[in-house]
């Protein structure tokens, strides 16, 4: 059984089909790029995986469970916006994560926070945008989860932070976890990916290992992406 198994997944909003019978099977031990331009259905898919949206039709199974409490215990989600209570300090947020997530490794989070020089006593709302993003990433990656769902983890961060984030994803790699990186900044992440999934207008148009793409086409994933999604 794959870690994530999606069959005939459809999501309709009034006057819009955001996902159109998507089939997708993702195995553990992989870092998968979920790639598509804005409005392709990426975010809708991520929300459904997190239980923030309910599908119109089709099924989603994570660890063989439909999204709910069971899957929320197993999925570490990094949203594309800051949703943490900003009045809390780093220390309070560490406690919050520890309270709610059994798989949270506090020592690991503290080590990452120290690495990045983030203050532990400062309120989150007083931090710079970049620091907030880094802190969020530390909290999410310090979970020992089965699935990491990272929505635009490198959107709008400086190159040094981007490198740190990518290195964190690599160093955190383990054979039992599935890491999904949803992004449209492909050239930055492509060397980190095992598999690549292209989403276009609510459909999966390609699902292949990145190395196979390079081998078969003689192009980078980024170049292929530009061709597939040419306006």
């Amino acid at each position, binding site marked *: 059984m794959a870690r994530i198994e999606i069959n005939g997944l459809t999501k309709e909003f009034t006057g819009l089909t955001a996902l159109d019978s998507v089939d997708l099977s993702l195995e553990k031990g992989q870092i998968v790029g979920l790639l598509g331009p804005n409005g392709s259905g990426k975010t809708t898919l991520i929300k459904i995986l997190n*239980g923030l949206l309910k599908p119109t039709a089709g099924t989603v199974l994570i660890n063989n469970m439909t999204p709910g409490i069971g899957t929320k215990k197993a999925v570490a989600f990094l949203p594309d916006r800051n949703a943490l209570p900003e009045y809390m300090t780093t220390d309070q947020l560490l406690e919050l994560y520890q309270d709610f997530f059994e798989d949270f490794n506090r020592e690991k989070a503290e080590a990452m926070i120290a690495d990045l020089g983030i203050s532990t006593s400062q309120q989150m709302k007083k931090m710079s945008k970049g620091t907030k993003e880094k802190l969020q990433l530390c909290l999410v990656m310090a979970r020992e989860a089965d699935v990491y769902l990272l929505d635009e983890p490198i959107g709008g961060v400086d190159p040094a932070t981007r490198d740190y984030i990518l290195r964190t994803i690599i160093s955190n790699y383990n054979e039992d976890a599935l890491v999904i990186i949803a992004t449209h900044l492909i050239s930055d992440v492509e060397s980190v990916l095992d598999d690549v999934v292209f989403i276009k207008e609510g459909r999966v148009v390609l699902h292949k290992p990145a190395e196979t793409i390079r081998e078969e086409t003689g192009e980078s994933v980024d170049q292929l992406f530009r061709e597939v999604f040419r306006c």
Partner: protein
Amino acid sequence: MLGKLLKYEIPALGRSLMPLYIGWTATAVLLGLAVGPLSSTSDFMVIVTGMMYSAVATAVVVMAVVMIIQRYKNSLLGDQAYFYQVLPVSAAEHIASKSISALVWILLSGVAMLLTGLVIALFSGELLKISLPELFRALAELKLSGWLTVLLSIIALAFSITKSILGIYAAITIGHQVQKHTVLASIGAYIGVLTFETCAGRILFAPISRLWYRLDDLASFNLIMVVAILVSAALGAVYFFICRYLMENKLNIS
């Protein structure tokens, strides 16, 4: 998990309300002084401090209501849902934690009001004029049946408050089913909730309607309170299940 939610939920509301309580107490001190030791010259100080006191009192009520609505809306249906709704917690626990913390802070606001009253009495010197033996005699006269009535009234109040909170939550949750004009839809839903409540109340209270004319009779009053508790519990349960059903099956975070 409910306990853990409350650990964060109750302080979250308190952050906005505690400073107001402190301000409220401060205006109570001023009002007390203006009424008591400083009252000799003119009424001006009494009017000013009285207005300050009522302004803060209003602010507490408005703030409490706004915060209760905001907390629910933002953390379960708005932007912060990206954190709260991915916690491994059931919809029922989320709704319960919001309702309980809202009830706690409404009751605490009531207690704060009583305390500001005491503060006024204390600083104006009126408190010292109350004779303790007389007070105890008055309390003793309440007897067991009297205390039962007090207890029932408080429980009825708590149930009624919780029911009203859940009614607001239900309206907000229904409103969020609409993708555009969510606020308008929520207000519309709330009008629906109020209409439903009036009708349901009329039907459920009908069997004991004649008791309303005998409120001076403690037994009838107690009975009304019991029925009120049951009615609030029934309506509250309906609202709770509406919220839970929509959150479990129709959640739609944009």
